[in-house]
């Protein structure tokens, strides 16, 4: 395998990182909205978002990507692969992050909300100043764990023709007929992205365990 092939893999890696970032940031923003709706104490809003979460947690990610990519094409909305997978991953991440953060918001002791209410803080301030800073801390290990899953999950985008790291590997492997070498390198590249995040997540979890003792 020459340097041209390796650079092609790195170009694929770049799109894996980009897709992970878009999915995580887009999903983070939408996921915060989902989490706030889930904890809003408005029954209708809670039910709608609970169904949304159940839908995305109860179906395979690959099927979600197919629906966005082929399904929207069927109704005449022909999306570029990049746009389609970005939408797919954003929706997927918003449901999972929404559920993780709902749990974290609910894990903040009730007395915190009561104290904030008694001090006449409004909803925005209660969330922004009091609850979310504590919920984010609680959620960090699980959030990082999900990010790792998301990065690895982006490999499914290869199936709808988006040239990220896995598909780049596939292309190179077909050219030089060295699948073990190529996918070995691809695997190492994924590992280099995910392993430090996993370590970081585990360290945060230990810190919180120690702090709450």
């Amino acid at each position, binding site marked *: 395998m020459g340097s041209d092939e390796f650079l092609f893999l790195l170009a694929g890696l770049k799109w894996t990182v980009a897709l992970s970032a878009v999915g995580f940031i887009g999903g983070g923003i939408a996921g915060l909205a989902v989490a706030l709706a889930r904890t809003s104490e408005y029954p209708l809003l809670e039910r709608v978002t609970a169904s949304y979460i159940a839908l995305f947690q109860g179906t395979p990610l690959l099927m979600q990507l197919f629906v966005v990519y082929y399904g929207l094409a069927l109704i005449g909305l022909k999306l570029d692969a990049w746009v389609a997978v970005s939408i797919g991953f954003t929706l997927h991440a918003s449901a999972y992050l929404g559920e993780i953060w709902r749990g974290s918001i609910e894990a903040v*002791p009730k*007395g*915190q909300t*009561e*104290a*904030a*209410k*008694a*001090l*006449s*803080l*409004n909803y925005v*301030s209660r969330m922004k*100043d*009091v609850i979310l*800073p*504590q919920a984010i*801390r609680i959620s960090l290990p699980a959030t990082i764990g999900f990010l790792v899953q998301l990065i690895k999950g982006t490999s499914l985008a290869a199936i709808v023709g988006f040239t990220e790291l896995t598909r780049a590997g596939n292309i190179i492997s077909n050219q030089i007929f060295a699948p073990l070498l190529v996918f070995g390198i691809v695997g190492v590249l994924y590992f280099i992205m995910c392993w430090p995040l996993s370590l970081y997540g585990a360290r945060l979890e230990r810190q919180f365990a120690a702090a709450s003792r």
Partner: protein
Amino acid sequence: MTGQSSPAATAAAMISMVGVEKWYGDFKALTDIDLSVRTGEKIVLCGPSGSGKSTLIRCINHLEAYQKGEIRVDGILLGDSARTIDAIRREVGMVFQQFNLFPHMTVLENCMLAPMRSLRASKAEAEATARKLLARVKILEQADKYPAQLSGGQQQRVAIARALCMQPKVMLFDEPTSALDPEMVKEVLDTMIGLAEEGMTMICVTHEMGFARQVADRVIFMASGAIVEEAPPAEFFTRPRHERTRAFLGEILRTH
């Protein structure tokens, strides 16, 4: 003592509750509560656990909703609208059994948040007020620490200062010393006594009968969600009229 609360006294009341009832589902937590508290008056609310005393004071600042009756604070009728709830919460400070300080903020930040957000105080104003009140509860030197670095008694004094930073007209205390180690109870009670001497209108849910004797204008005894008896402390402790009050006092004075 029902003869004391004439209509004139009710009109000048800082807090008035008329016919307040509250249910949790089928369970009636508060039954026909009539209570009028004059400006500057100190009330101690006692009773066995589950008697509704915490629920009663939590209705005053709408941490609990009530289904029937009327509550007014400083003339403002507590309705369901966010505006009246907010208006009342700005006038009513509350201190909790579990302190409920914000753990991710320093002591000073805990005290500055609500005045800045809710009263639109500038940062400098909020900090000046916070420092003044932290000094008053004798804890100014801990201003830059986080709550977890303080003892329970210190945390509760910070919680009192935090509530006072909103310049409330009424302070509600919900078993403020129940979660404290015995050696820390006094520092919190002393702070509350200081506050009482300065004329703050206070309702204290507490089993500290020494505090009640020293500070209270009236002691109110609740059982099963209703007010059973109310009297000035001298009378309440020496000549309780109801059997349930006598039983409760017998129990509490033996263990305290």
